[in-house]
């Protein structure tokens, strides 16, 4: 039997999801309190004894298991070690492999993906895929969200990525530009703890690096060393260029900025805090030095002395055994634990996380239909059982923040219907969907892989997943004709496209090899494997979308995301051009090409009589985009819903276009910026 619980006590803020988007907001909000005398939100560091303050009461809902968000040292270590042991034992070491696979809060999984034969959808797993192409990326529903298994690459977007329409007549411009986002990029780089070398960055943009990063800007930590393999490839390609159909493009190989610990950069100096300053017009966040404290790398959640530096475990996707790679649990812990007057960490009693709680619907106030009045939750009781308790929380005087990722946010919104009377007629509406863009414009980087054997051993399979990228194709006039792309070099041999080393072993066993001969063949093959990646920008297409359908429900009776997805000529042409670039680079490096695309691949197409196949990048974006007007976007540039003043929708779904950057740094930057608007709303509520 499913019981109904009595409604929860009111909170100031409700956050749905503990991924990086939700955790950043929780952390920044709990760093601020309401000064009742001034009637303003102020940073904790500015509190003094004589005044009275009100603490914000915050409740976070998390679909994953209770164990995943228990962040005291002992429990978090136990839970995380369970993840690692599971990872060791799983045969298919895909991104989701270390984490609990829950029937009550299922996650999209690449193992469920199969080719689609329209009109029949692929219903295996969590997503219902109508195609014609399967959407090829996954996410994970556990405490901390998808950054647990992300790779950790953190380039910023380029100025032109924000104005594709203005510059190249394509897609739609963002409501903010690069300049506006720049200070928030710095805050995001601080929060994630980015390692990198600003002066080694090189992009095909008009701005010089001083304009792009700001004078004297440095990343918090020194560059992560590029792999031995990268250096061999760089040696062979430096100073050369690639001829595309219409243009010659010089090759630039750049060490990737990354969210993993190296050595704190002395020039970065002091530890920082992100603080809101109030003014007439509202709040402005800024990054400030803490004078008596040096910047330190943030180690594992359970032990700050573990993972202070990347140790080369080479398993960043799906799990970093020492948490040298950033994950959102680190930020979440900072939301839950605050330093008290005696400089001890203390559990903050005003924030609460309720796990095993799947949010599935919002409802609006009958009297004021602009207001989100309730959040509806199904809380399952144990990992084994699918019965649940039906719960709701009153939010008429709260700010509601959806941070459940770019599949889940639109899914929850589309499941939230309400009726209004317009001109005497009953009209059914969907929350936040005046523009009809909720769930639309689903995008990903289409990852075309090419792989081959280097003439000498390069000793791949060592180091973080990727330490170098080719940035030459990230911007240029060609974007009016076909997509831009970024090309990471991959340090893990052919494991992704060919399931090496297992596949090499079975191939050689099939040839009857054993003993010394087998050893030699494997040594030759495995120490020379190189993999090139082409992450191709996808444009927003209103028909690429997440919808829901009451025929497809999960174990708790909640609609599953139903996906329609395809790519268009703009993107196919980019893949053709990228393959052209790959062929030339392989030829120059004397790489023996082993790339094979098959008609049986999950995502494959023929363009100009040539077959191409691609994978997903895990970059699920666009499904609740931000914009300048309520007609063509779901939120404003502060991630605030146009339709409901107490609703924010945050995460990669806000991205208007994708560009060629991995999305998380950018989503972190604009999510941090959204806190300015949230603080202002809270000020009004608390006054």
């Amino acid at each position: 039997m499913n019981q109904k619980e009595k409604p929860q006590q009111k909170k100031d803020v409700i956050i749905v999801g503990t991924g990086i988007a939700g955790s950043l907001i929780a952390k920044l909000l709990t760093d601020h309190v309401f000064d009742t005398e001034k009637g303003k939100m102020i940073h904790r560091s500015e509190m003094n004894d004589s005044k009275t303050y009100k603490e914000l009461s915050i409740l976070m809902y998390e679909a994953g298991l209770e164990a995943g968000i228990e962040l005291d040292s002992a429990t978090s270590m136990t839970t995380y070690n369970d993840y690692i042991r599971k990872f060791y034992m799983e045969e298919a070491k895909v991104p989701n492999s270390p984490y609990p696979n829950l029937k009550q809060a299922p996650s999209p999984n690449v193992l469920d993906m199969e080719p689609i034969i329209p009109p029949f959808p692929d219903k295996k797993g969590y997503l219902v895929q109508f195609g014609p192409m399967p959407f090829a990326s996954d996410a994970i529903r556990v405490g901390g969200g998808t950054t647990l298994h992300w790779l950790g690459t953190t380039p910023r977007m380029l100025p032109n990525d924000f104005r594709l329409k203005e510059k190249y007549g394509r897609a739609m411009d963002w409501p903010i530009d690069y300049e506006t986002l720049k200070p928030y990029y710095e805050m995001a780089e601080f929060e994630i703890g980015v390692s990198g070398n600003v002066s080694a960055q090189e992009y095909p943009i008009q701005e010089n690096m001083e304009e792009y990063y700001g004078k004297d800007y440095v990343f918090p930590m020194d560059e992560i060393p590029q792999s031995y393999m990268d250096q061999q490839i760089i040696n062979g390609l430096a100073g050369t260029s690639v001829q595309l159909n219409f243009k010659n493009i010089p090759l630039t190989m750049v060490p990737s900025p990354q969210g993993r610990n190296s050595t704190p950069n002395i020039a970065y100096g002091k530890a920082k805090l992100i603080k809101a300053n109030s003014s007439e017009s509202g709040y402005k966040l800024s990054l400030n030095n803490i004078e008596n404290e040096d910047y330190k790398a943030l180690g594992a959640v359970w032990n700050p002395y573990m993972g202070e530096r990347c140790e080369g475990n080479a398993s960043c996707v799906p799990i970093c055994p020492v948490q040298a790679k950033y994950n959102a649990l680190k930020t979440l812990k900072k939301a839950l634990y605050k330093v008290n007057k005696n400089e001890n960490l203390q559990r903050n009693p005003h924030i609460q996380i309720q796990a095993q709680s799947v949010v599935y619907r919002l409802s609006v106030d009958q009297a004021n239909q602009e207001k989100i009045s309730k959040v509806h939750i199904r809380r399952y009781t144990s990992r084994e059982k699918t019965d649940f308790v039906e719960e709701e929380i009153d939010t008429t005087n709260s700010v509601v923040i959806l941070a459940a990722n770019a599949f889940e946010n639109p899914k929850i919104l589309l499941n939230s219907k309400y009726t209004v009377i317009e001109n005497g007629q009953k009209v059914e509406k969907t929350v936040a969907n005046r523009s009809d863009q909720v769930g639309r414009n689903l995008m990903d980087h289409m990852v075309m892989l090419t792989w081959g054997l280097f003439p000498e051993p390069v000793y791949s399979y060592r180091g973080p997943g990727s330490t170098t990228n080719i940035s030459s194709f990230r911007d240029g006039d060609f974007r009016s004709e076909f997509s831009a792309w970024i090309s990471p070099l991959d340090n893990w041999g052919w494991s992704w496209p060919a399931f090496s080393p297992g596949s090499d072993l079975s191939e050689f066993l099939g040839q009857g090899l054993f003993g010394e001969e087998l050893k030699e063949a494997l040594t030759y093959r495995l120490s020379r494997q190189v993999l090139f990646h082409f992450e191709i920008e996808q444009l927003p297409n209103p028909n690429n979308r997440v919808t829901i359908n009451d025929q497809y429900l999960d174990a708790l009776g909640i609609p599953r995301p139903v996906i329609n997805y395809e790519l268009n000529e703009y993107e196919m042409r980019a893949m053709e051009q990228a393959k052209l670039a790959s062929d030339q680079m392989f030829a120059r490096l004397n790489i023996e090409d082993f790339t094979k695309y098959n008609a049986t691949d999950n995502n494959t197409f023929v363009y100009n009589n040539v077959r191409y196949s691609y994978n997903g990048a895990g970059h699920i974006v666009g499904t609740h985009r931000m914009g300048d007007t309520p007609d063509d976007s779901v939120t404003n540039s502060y991630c605030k819903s146009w339709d409901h003043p107490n609703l924010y929708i945050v995460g990669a779904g806000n991205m208007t276009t994708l560009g060629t950057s991995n999305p998380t740094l950018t989503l972190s930057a604009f999510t941090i910026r959204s806190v300015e608007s949230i603080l202002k709303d809270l000020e009004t509520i608390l006054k």
Partner: protein
Amino acid sequence: MIIQKIFNVDDYYYDVFMAISESLTGFSVNELQSTGLAETYYTHILHQIESVTFTEFLNISKDILENSTTQNQLNNAISSDILANPATQDIANSIITLWYLGTWEGAYINDLSYKEGLVWNLMQAHPPGAKQPGFKSWGVKPVNSNS
């Protein structure tokens, strides 16, 4: 060839298993032993395939080991007497896979078997997520590479 007596284990077939594993994998008995998994693998196989089948495989192995005086002879015998017959070929390939990857029919025996897969030694690397070599190690040639 000599079937070494393995210290502490009183099972002649175990010695044969190790000796034939050496020739199948190209790794010395010593290297195989140092995975810490030799006995585990042996007992695992005993539980996985019918004991008569396994014993027959080991008897064939014993014969060819005893009758070969050079490595060349032994290799030829492995090709003709073990790998030319689908039944024994399957077992031989499974044994090689077990040592190289730590899996039997696609499943790891335990978390140690994942970490001790010998394939990682061949490529001068290490299993992802385990036996980490340390900061910056990936920026230089592996220290133990002879090339």
